[in-house]
């Protein structure tokens, strides 16, 4: 197991290096495009262009340029946005990251707990009215667009019903750092968590239910029953444990994408200035250094989360460890 973990993290480092190189090449070495003009932004004067060329070493060979870029991103952290009048890029990302991480981690906990409960209940009471209503509920959750749901939640909690007991505790839209007020952080994020998780609860509950039902037909579940253990032990130890394998691999993909910025719609609706929002704004301004930093951040998290999930996956399924 330890060998697997080490191997997995070494390969992660290699993947991260490859991604950084690829991203760099796309931005800096695309033939026929002058990277200096891209970095300097629209309508930049000759002096700015010259400054950019010097700053990024654009008159030197590209391995040097890559090294300069990485140094600016990770060592000196002084990558500057020319579009945005000299704003430092790395602090912007570091400021946005906790917002997105808070949002996505919280939502993930909600959707994992609720979807496992729903999937288990539906599979245990398969074919009953409970099963049918849980699955219809899941389908409704999947069908509701997150921006619409978020706006409805805002409409109710911020204006229409804000003065009732139900929603009077809801703070104004925006993020409250955990270090500032843990309870405020929690209050500000509860509704975004629930809103973001609704879609995933629906998907994951349905996936888990069908994989539980499929596992009920497996020979090893029949063996487990023939051993004389209780039906609950059969369900939790044998069916659920093996069904979690498919569930976890799906989770790795969704979770990585969300942390990497796919929670944009939720961030915008709830006024959370996270990585999704930052990427969106920088794309609007064609602010190349920020885009570059955001892409690197996103890639890092997708790869990192996938490595964590793979380790968990190997713990769940011993066959993977020896592959």
């Amino acid at each position: 197991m330890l060998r697997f973990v080490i191997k997995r993290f070494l390969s992660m480092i290699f993947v991260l290096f490859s991604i950084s190189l690829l991203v760099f090449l796309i931005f800096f070495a695309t033939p026929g495009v002058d990277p200096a003009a891209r970095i300097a932004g629209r309508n930049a004067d000759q002096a700015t262009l010259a400054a950019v060329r010097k700053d990024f070493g654009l008159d030197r060979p590209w391995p040097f340029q890559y090294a300069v870029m990485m140094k600016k991103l990770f060592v000196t952290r002084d990558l500057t946005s020319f579009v945005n009048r000299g704003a430092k890029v790395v602090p912007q990302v570091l400021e946005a990251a906790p917002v997105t991480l808070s949002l996505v981690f919280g939502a993930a906990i909600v959707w994992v707990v609720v979807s496992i409960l729903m999937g288990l209940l539906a599979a245990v009471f398969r074919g009953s009215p409970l099963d049918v209503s849980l699955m219809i509920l899941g389908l409704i959750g999947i069908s509701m667009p997150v921006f619409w749901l978020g706006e409805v939640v805002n409409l109710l909690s911020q204006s229409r019903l804000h003065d009732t007991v139900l929603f009077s505790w809801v703070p104004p839209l925006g993020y409250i750092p955990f270090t500032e007020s843990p309870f405020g952080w929690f209050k500000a994020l509860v509704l975004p968590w629930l809103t973001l998780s609704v879609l995933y609860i629906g998907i994951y509950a349905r996936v888990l239910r069908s994989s539980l039902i499929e596992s009920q037909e497996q020979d090893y579940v029949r063996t487990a029953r023939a051993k004389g253990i209780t039906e609950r032990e059969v369900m939790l130890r044998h069916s659920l444990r093996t069904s979690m394998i498919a569930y976890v691999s799906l989770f790795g993909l969704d979770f990585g994408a969300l942390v990497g910025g796919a929670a944009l719609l939720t961030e915008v609706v709830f006024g959370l200035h996270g990585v999704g929002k930052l990427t969106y704004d920088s794309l609007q301004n064609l602010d190349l250094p920020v885009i570059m930093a955001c892409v690197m951040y996103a890639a890092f998290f997708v790869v990192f989360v996938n490595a964590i999930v793979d380790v968990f996956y190997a713990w769940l399924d011993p066959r993977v460890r020896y592959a």
Partner: protein
Amino acid sequence: MRDEIATSPLLEIRDLRISFRTEHGLARAVDGLSLSIEAGEAVGIVGESGSGKTISMLAVMRLIRDPNAVIEGQVLHRGRDLMQLPEREMQAVRGGDIAMIFQDPMTALTPVYTVGWQIAEQLRAHEPLSKRQARVRAVSLLAEVGIPNPERRVDEYPHQFSGGMRQRAMIAMALSCNPSLLIADEPTTALDVTVQAQILELMRRLRRDHGSSVLLITHDMGAVGELAERVVVMYAGRVVEEGPKEAIFRDPQHPYTWGLLGSIPRVDRARVRRLAAIPGSPPSLLDLREGCRFEPRCGYRFERCATRPELLERVAPGRRDACHLDPSVRPALRRAALDGENAQASA
């Protein structure tokens, strides 16, 4: 009272009927199976796929979970009807007093737990053991079924075991709580021929050492010859013939049994031109005739075959068959059938 318990069989199945509600009507998988096993006895149930042998044994273990299954009849075990037992008490019987091993060892173990863990799980379900004690028992069980290096193998996962090793582990698991009855559902079908012989040899040795009764479900007459003392032949949900192994092999009474025995290649006789195959295929369980179910495929059918032949002692005590043919004419017909002539004549 003592005497009654001593003389009553270990397991007695009385008139077991299993059917499934389907879109096209009722599929009658088992139609009145009666069977008894004495303590320490080994019985082989033979028949082709769909004859109802596996489903009957799953019914005995109460492992049929299909909501469309209709199960009737009695299964008496130590004076109790298993069909009426509360689920809790049935759990104590399953894996404790009656254990079962299955056909495909490649898929019968949960892939995510070590073999030792899975054996310990069964032990701990029936006996108050600590994890450590259960593990020690698991190691000695693995050693008993002939797995080399049991101390190390106990912590390995099923995918690290070969097919034969997995079946050995399954047998170790089944025997872990010293069951009085071991139901083996085609334990060798999925294995290589050389491994088959080893597994049968292992089962024979364990039966001797543990004194368990064995119910062997198979379509392999060779496996029956190795292990069983008494043979029950099933066809389309009914028993067609039953008796001591030697008698069934030497002097089979039912034309279906002739077909079964005739379809085994034999090296001790001059080679016939072709192996005798039973013409036709088993009937659909949805549309079963009232009379003899083998009639459409039988080369010796006559008018009486339209009525159901009862399973009766027709030729000798302890031998029962369900065929209307006059016992005195059977030997001549059988010789013709087993020599392969009939197979060609009716093909």
